[in-house]
């Protein structure tokens, strides 16, 4: 397996509740995984643990057989080769689009940097926007810059936290398609968090559902629909809510 997550558990400091309980997942190279769940279910926590922004109480994460974290090791976030697109993008407001993207390329040679910059700008279709500052871009454009910035250093794994949450419905539709194309073109292994099932169905190869830190379901999008069919039979009262997934 390309990414292997075993038995990851975590609780935030000064809280008793476990934010994530025994989370395990194996990911193949190039696969797009979606983590679904309601607000507060622990989705962001999974990403933060993988990125090394939090340290799990137990569990193991490895990429290509290199251990990132277990009871003996803890690789610092900057050494993990994992890219992340934050919920609010976290574009550096004092840097231009180009400087934001170049930020992660500081170890490269100058010419290589410029080539890579143009490559990723082309990938997200933002050529010509190099000189702008983040606040001079639309929400969708900001999101694409964030993706470009995360992709530029060629991470092994790309994490996206609610990439569509700040966009209006129309833009969400458009960006969802774009993101799918970008991810496939870049052939990058990725995990994205969402609470919208539509996102998950359109984008993901596999879906992980979590609830209160517990894994409820792992499988292909079509399998999730079967689960709902069963649920629907036992719980007819909440059926309207699930209508969406059939469309």
């Amino acid at each position: 397996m390309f990414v292997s997550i075993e038995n990851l558990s975590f609780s935030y400091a000064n809280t008793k509740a476990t934010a994530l309980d025994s989370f395990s997942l194996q990911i193949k190279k190039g696969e797009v995984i979606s983590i679904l769940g309601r607000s507060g279910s622990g989705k962001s926590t999974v990403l933060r643990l993988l990125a090394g922004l939090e340290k799990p109480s137990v569990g193991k994460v490895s990429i290509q057989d290199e251990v990132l974290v277990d009871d003996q090791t803890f690789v610092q976030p900057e050494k993990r080769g994992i890219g992340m697109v934050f919920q609010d993008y976290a574009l550096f407001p004092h840097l231009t689009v180009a400087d934001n993207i170049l930020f992660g390329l500081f170890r490269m040679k100058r010419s290589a940097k410029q080539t890579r910059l143009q490559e990723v700008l082309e990938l997200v279709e933002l050529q010509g926007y190099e000189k702008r500052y983040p606040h001079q871009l639309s929400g969708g454009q900001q999101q694409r810059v964030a993706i470009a910035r995360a992709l530029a250093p060629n991470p092994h794994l790309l994490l996206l936290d609610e990439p569509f949450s700040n966009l209006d419905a129309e833009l969400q539709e458009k960006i969802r398609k774009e993101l799918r194309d970008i991810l496939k073109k870049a052939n990058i292994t990725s995990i994205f968090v969402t609470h919208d099932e539509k996102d998950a169905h359109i984008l993901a190869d596999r879906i992980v559902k979590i609830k209160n830190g517990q894994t409820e379901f792992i499988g292909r999008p079509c399998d999730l629909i079967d689960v709902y069919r069963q649920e629907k039979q036992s719980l007819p009262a909440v059926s309207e809510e699930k209508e969406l997934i059939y469309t």
Partner: protein
Amino acid sequence: MQRRLANVNIWTVTAMAIIAALFLPNMTIVTGLFTPSNENWEHMKEFVLWSFIKNSLILVVATAGATIFIGLSLAWLIAQYQFPFRRFFKWALILPLSIPPFIGAYTYHGIFNYTGVIQTTLRDRFGMELNPSHFDIMNLPGAIFIYTVFLYPYVYTITQVFLSQQSASLIESTRLLGKGPWRTFFQVVVPISRISIIAGASLVILEVLNDYGVVKYYGIQTFTTGIFQTWFGLGDIETSIKLAASLMGFVIVILLIEKVLRGRRQYSYSSTKVRPLPLIQLTGWKAVAAAGYCLSILALGFFIPIAQLIEWTILTFGTIPLDEFMSYMRNSIVVAGLSATAIIVFALIVGNFARLVQGRFAKLLPKLTVLGYSIPGAVIAVAVVTAFVALDEFLAPLYQLAGMNTTLVLSVSIILLITAYIIRFFAIGYSSIETGYDKIGTDFQDASRLLGAGLTRTFLKVDMPMMKGAIISGFILVFIDVLKEIPLTLILRPFNFDTLSTKAFQYASDEKIMEASQASLLIVGISALAIVIFYKFLEKEMD
């Protein structure tokens, strides 16, 4: 504690060292409490300690009351009503803060005394027979007046900012419930701004307890004057340490009272997206009265003393050799600049540590450094000298190795003074930096680290540039405070080292009021300029 502590090593070590260095000297005061008392202390306890406590208490309570009244009423006028020159008053009302109270004290004494403008005018123009004692302001009420007109901006600014962030609907709903403006004021505005009023008033109280210049000049016995007397008059540092410890106890009681009054609620910043208060247009005599009220406060706290200082400066221009004067100014700017720079650098390091570290105890550590601001300068002076003399004793063998035939090196150098400034004013810079860190959050830092940048690179390339506003405003605030500082500078400056404020103070103490005016005017000018820059900067940041 776990999460990032493992990798904050250099940051942790540096931050801990800074916190310890800022905190430990104050502990020497506490140990002073346990040394056996000598007869001076017994004498003090019997005869004067009570009057120190009584005078300090009267000054603190009366000044707090008066500054709350003035600060709150001005804040409410500015936040809620539209009247002529409101925009000007909004920022100008902060200006009295640029006049150090001791300068205000001798200026007003000069205005009121026998040869001053008021008595001479009344005598010469109107031929009135005057009883000079009616015009004596060198007493407790006079000191309260001075503190009030120059310190009320602490209450005014904090409350004004708070009120202007409040949602319009809160006030409007009170209005719609049929309450008139007075009832709205007392039943809604006062209770909701309680926290900012208390915060502002605490700053005023700490300033009053710290003050040496006003009470010395007006001949009022307080803890600070007592510390000076026993130390320099009697040469009895042990007793002055005991006095310092008592003053520290006094301050701690006040801080505890503040905590209780403030209750469990923290400062709440309501969202900036709320609809701001629409201003109510005042017309006719009401508009005149509002503008007149603001103008008279501003006149008392700024225009009148400034006019007097300018007059004196013109009268005495040229009496102090220019190059001498330039050297005071250079000294002032150098020590203020160095201290402000050091404080901001330390604050950035400690602030970053506070943000990275997890766990309640570790988060509490940086708060210790804030103590320095609540401890009066005279106490810090005692503490720092004691600590530095001990340090010199410890380093004495090293000095001998280096061929020096003295045992006092650090304790007679400018480092002593700058260290004391850093301890005293660290909290001012730190609160600005802390707010800056709070504002940018940790997302940018996380993003930077996931792009391969380590903590130090992240700090230099992401945090620092994003904190520019906080860094500049923190620097300005510390700079002004050092410029105006009196007790620490008087006690700790190296031999023959004078700043603008020590010079102004000395001239004034020697009854050379007019000669003092030049240095004073320069201090006020630089501070006022810095305040205006700071304010304009803040306003730009806010929108």
